[in-house]
Each structure stands twice: as C-alpha cells, then as structure tokens.
C-alpha cells in the first residue's frame, strides 16, 4: 500500500516530530521525502516553542482551594441537617396544632405565647426527651390514624433525606477501566 505524505505528516504532528512511532516503511519514506523531512524538523522545533508556554505555578493556589474545600464541606454538613430539623419541626407543629402537646391547641395558646408563652415553649423544646414522649402519647390519643401515618412519613422522609445528603458526598461512583 502506498504511503501518503499527509498520513506521515499527520503522525509527525501528533508525535511532535518524533519518528519513533513510524513503521520501517514509513521511516524509509521519510528518508527519501524532503517535504516530510522538513515537516518532521518543523514539528520538533514547534514542540520546543510550545514546551515553554506553561506559566509558573501559583504557590498560593493549593492553599486557597483547600480553604474553599473546607468551607464547602462545612456548608454541606449544615445543609444535610436541614431535612431532619424540618421534619422534626413539622412533626412538632402537627402535634401542637392538634393539641398533642400539653396546654391545649395552638390557637388557644397564641395569646398566652405572645406574653410569656415563648419562654415556656423554649424550655419545653429544650428537653427533647420529654417533648417527644409527650408528643408520642398525645399523638396516640389525639391524632387520627391517617394523620399519624402522615406525620410518620414526613419524619421518615426527613431522616432518609439526611442519610442521602450525607452519604452522597462520600459515595464512590462506579469506575470504568481506563484504557
């Protein structure tokens, strides 16, 4: 098969003028073809010019990227907790609205909360065990099975979202075998 100058020159362009990749037949052609010889020399010289185009490394870049990486990680941790906080809030709100928490319904409590009620609510919320125990007892007594199921689903979704959000960061994608 005849060897074309363009095919050899294309190879030379890719190899930066290096003839090591050429077959014996192609190398023989190169020896006899002044045009291809000239291209090989030109490619080598071009390669030398391009060898100097890289700028000096930025010594502070790595540090700045690391700093950004850490703040990204912190932000993600906060975001990952949001679904839990939201689901707990929804569950508590549901219990309060339906009178699950001591002291009657939310509407009845509103005037009281406007004065000193917020303080007592904050105290109640700070004791999570007590609040949850109360809520659990109240939901059994007050909530309809449908509402109870809905509250449960919302809570579970919150937990699932948290797990997904936290695991996603550490997930290792299936890797292909690179050639």
């Amino acid at each position, binding site marked *: 098969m005849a060897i074309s100058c*363009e095919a050899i*020159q*294309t190879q030379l*362009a*890719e190899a930066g003028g290096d003839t090591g990749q050429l077959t014996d037949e192609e190398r023989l052609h190169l020896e006899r073809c002044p045009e291809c010889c000239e*291209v090989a*020399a*030109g*490619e080598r*010289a*071009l390669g030398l*010019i*391009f060898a*100097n*185009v*890289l*700028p*000096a*490394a*930025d010594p502070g*870049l*790595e540090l*700045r*990227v*690391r700093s*950004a*990486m*850490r703040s*990204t990680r912190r932000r993600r941790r906060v975001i990952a907790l949001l679904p839990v906080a939201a689901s707990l809030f929804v569950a508590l709100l549901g219990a309060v609205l339906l009178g699950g928490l001591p002291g009657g319904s939310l509407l009845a409590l509103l005037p009281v909360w406007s004065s000193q009620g917020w303080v007592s609510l904050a105290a109640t919320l700070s004791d999570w065990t007590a609040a949850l125990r109360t809520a659990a007892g109240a939901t059994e007594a007050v909530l309809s099975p449908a509402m109870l199921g809905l509250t449960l689903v919302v809570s579970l979704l919150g937990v699932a979202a948290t797990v997904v959000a936290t695991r*996603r*960061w*550490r*997930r*290792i*994608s*299936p*890797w*292909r075998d*690179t050639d």
Partner: protein
Amino acid sequence: MSFSDATDEHLVRLALDGDEDAFSHLVTRYQRRLTAFLGQLVGDIELARELCQESFIRAWSALDRFNPKYRFSTWLFRIGHNLGIDHLRRRRLKTVALYRTDRDGGEIELDIEDATKDPLGHFENAELSASLKQAIDGLRPEYRELVLLRHFGCLSYQEIAEFKDMPLGTVKNKLFRAHTVLRNALAAFL
C-alpha cells in the same frame, strides 16, 4: 503508592473518600496547564489564575457528580472552559472603549496594554512570544481551540476528541492543518 505515581482516577477516588491531599495533588498536577489554557482563552494571566482557582473549587464541589465515563482532565478543562466563556460573555457586555480626540476632532481608540497580564509574558524571547500570540490568534477558531487544548492544556489527542466530542481522526486532521499554519507563521523561529 505515592500521589505522584497515582492516576487521576485513583486520586479522584481518594478525594471522594474525603482525602483532601489527593485532590490537592490534582490541583498541583493540572494548575499550570489549566492556567495556560485559560490564559490564552481570556488573554489575561491574572484572570486565568482566578478562573483556574474557581475551576478547581467547582470541580471539588461537584466531584460526586463527576461521570467516570469521562477522564478527569477533560471534565476539569470543560469546567474551566465554560467559566472562561461565561467570563468573556460578561466582559463583552461591560466593555467600555476608551477614546481620545485627535487634532481633526476624530476619535482614536487608545491602545492600552498591560504586559504583566500577557499569558506569554514569561517568555524570554519577546519577539517569539509576540509572533506566537499573533500566529495563534490568526488561526481559524476551530483550529485555535484545538491548539490551545493540545499545547497549552497538554491534553492528548484522545482527550481532545473526548472534550470536543469529535472523532479522533478529525482531531488529528485539524491539528495537522493548524500545525501547518503555525509552522509557516513561525518559520523565522524554526
């Protein structure tokens, strides 16, 4: 195995496991190439360094969404390329031409150049640097981008084909033609 010997794939895997050092090594590995590529794209080395930093931060933030079907290098360069293009679009909107008035009342655009921002400013041979810049700027856009990816980004032909979603043969052909133009333009230095 040290980080220097590790493949990009291995380093990305470690980074996904939370190893910051592994990702930092990728930063070290690619920062000069990405900066050189972006420098040619936006024409300002300082801006290129900023875009390079932003590219790495975005790559880190999106590492869990990285599709391992592609190489890390092409993915990173794509992030950088998109940032560079976005910046050029914004800059085009904000550009304000500076003019002065000549004796006849006509306007002459001021040619303000800051040599410190020249992406090839580190070249010892200023004449060669200017000629290279001119030769690259004179290339057809489709050739120019491939030359930037090949010689400034130091991507392999295969990586360029992946980056551009172009057949390997087409990449070879276009780069050969681009080299022919460059060899002619830089004949005085070859």
